[in-house]
């Protein structure tokens, strides 16, 4: 490695009169170590606290609803002003029964749509920014990826429900719904298109929100692909499309998969935007892709207020159970992404330096 020129800060260091006294330095070293260790413990404590609170709060709801919670569809708060009943030793309002299947399905459906939309856009954007456009153009245009990442989700939701949703349901959805044949899968794209609040609009908005997550990682990965294999492929007579498909993408494939799973995790947990564009309809599965629905995260944010009025605390406990389901999905997805990205990182590291 070449010796770099002296860092700017090094010159005053040598003359600093405070740079004396071994004991002071030992003390400072110890402060750094202890402070650092303390700081690393705090996020762990915070995360453990979150999971424990969720589990404790969800326990009564789990005792009543059991595993059926994730397969049932009913969403009945019961008679919150009337009598109570005891189920499995837990006091709940009369007639209260909760099932999370519709919102669990809604969470998975919207996230799946989001991935289908975001992955090609992200990869195409990454190619455009790293290979297709000249640098003077790609730097300012790349800034839009960061802008999209930075726009608050409540504003994206506002745009989704007031601008995008009405536009799609008026000018785009009817064309699709009226022209697709009545065959499996495509059947879900037929029927009433609603008013723009629903499954497909939520998925599209979510897709837009996770594009920055996938695109920025993919862009960095593409920049790490060494030029020699690409130049070699070009010299063999491959077109740039073939180089992209046969050299660049395979080179960083696992990294892209990892980034995609990361984006999936973000889509699963997104709350406010979905709460605004999904229609927030509890307890029913969307009949077609335009139907109104809700997700776990959106349910928690829209229902916690009214759940707090349940004197027995059963409704709040139910939301904890829903939150726990979402948290477990999110943790699993994130760990999966981490494993994939780390494996990709190990493989890419020696190549990147060569």
């Amino acid at each position, binding site marked *: 490695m070449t010796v770099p020129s002296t860092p700017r800060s090094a010159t005053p260091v040598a003359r600093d009169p405070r740079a004396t006294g071994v004991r002071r*330095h030992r003390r*400072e070293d110890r402060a*750094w*170590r202890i402070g650092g260790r303390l700081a690393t413990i705090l996020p762990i404590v915070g995360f453990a606290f979150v999971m424990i609170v969720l589990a404790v709060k969800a326990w009564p709801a789990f005792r009543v609803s059991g595993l059926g919670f994730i397969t049932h569809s009913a969403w009945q708060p019961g008679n919150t002003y009337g009598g109570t009943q005891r189920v499995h030793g837990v006091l709940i309002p009369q007639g209260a029964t909760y099932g999370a299947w519709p919102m669990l399905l809604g969470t998975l459906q919207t996230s799946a749509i989001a991935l289908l939309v975001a992955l090609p856009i992200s990869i195409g954007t990454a190619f455009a920014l790293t290979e297709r456009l000249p640098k003077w153009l790609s730097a300012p245009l790349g800034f*839009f990826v960061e802008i999209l990442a930075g726009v*608050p989700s*409540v504003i994206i939701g506002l*745009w989704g429900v007031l*601008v995008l949703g009405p536009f799609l349901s008026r000018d785009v959805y009817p064309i699709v719904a009226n022209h697709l044949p009545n065959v499996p899968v495509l059947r879900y794209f037929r029927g009433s298109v609603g008013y723009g609040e629903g499954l497909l609009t939520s998925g599209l908005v979510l897709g837009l929100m996770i594009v920055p997550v996938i695109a920025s990682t993919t862009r960095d990965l593409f920049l790490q692909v060494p030029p020699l294999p690409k130049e070699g492929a070009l010299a063999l007579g491959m077109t740039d499309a073939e180089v992209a498909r046969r050299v660049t993408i395979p080179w960083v494939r696992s990294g892209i998969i990892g980034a995609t799973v990361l984006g999936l995790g973000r889509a699963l947990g997104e709350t406010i935007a979905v709460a605004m564009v999904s229609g927030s309809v509890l307890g029913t599965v969307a009949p077609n892709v335009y139907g109104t629905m809700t997700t776990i995260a959106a349910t928690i944010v829209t229902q916690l207020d009214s759940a707090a009025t349940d004197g027995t605390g059963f409704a709040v406990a139910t939301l904890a159970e829903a939150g726990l389901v979402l948290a477990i999905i*999110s943790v699993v997805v994130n760990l999966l992404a981490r494993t994939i990205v780390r494996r990709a990182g190990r493989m890419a590291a020696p190549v990147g330096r060569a």
Partner: protein
Amino acid sequence: MSVVPASYPSTRWRRAKVGLFRAFTILALAFVIGPALWIIGGVVVKAVPGWRWNVLTTLSQGTSGGLENAIVGTLLLMLGVTVVAGSIGILTGIYLAEIAPPTRRGRSSGAVVRVVIDVLSGFPSIVLGYVGYVALVVGLHWGYSFLPAVLILSLMVIPYIAKATESALHQVPTSYREGAEALGMSLGYGLRKVVVRSALPGIVTGLLLALAIAGGETAPLLYTAGASNTLPSIAPLHHPVAYLTYYVWTDWNQPMASAHVVSYDASLILIVMVLTLLVVSRVIVARTQRHSESAR
């Protein structure tokens, strides 16, 4: 890579695929730039024509009035996040990159916190907000107030700050550390005077982006900071804090026209805040790159 197939596709088809590929990349980029412009332009078009500057200096009346309390509240929350998440996140990043002693199997002792940070960075913010509500606001009787909001927001953005700090430190050349050690500097002194100092632009950039995220959050704040139409109080507990995203979230579907104005005004202020933070972080990055190039 794969072997060239025996029957290679025709030149015309290959040329067509090149055209398709190029069109696809530009189209994809258009699907990023288009919506970004559409969102920002939409807010600007709705908010700017009726913009009154006294929005910045008058209190909100819920569905009408100004946004002074929300602006002050959002800035206060961001300040709180800077203090709490900034210190914890930066220290965590420094520890992971520089201090964590390697264990026998060659793995860093910071393995657990790395996993937790990765998991936290993708954790649903509403679940954090729920826990803040159940455990802090109700459980500890703190009420809707400043402290639970800052704690929950901090837990959310610590991973971003820690990761940015760690990767900024990884970009500091090893020779800087060796030089510091060769000059007889202790670990802490070398960190403070040489290593962290040269990573500072990257660290600050990470902090600014984390602030942009924190300032634009809604879900974790709704049930921790509460809502308030008065200026935030200095007391960290029992006093709800107003913030901009709340007014966007509650006022957009109110029947009154004045509520829509509030909603769009709050959106505009939020976008200006976020764009400012993004541009400042961009400028910092650009300036450091210029410096590092001149140093070479």
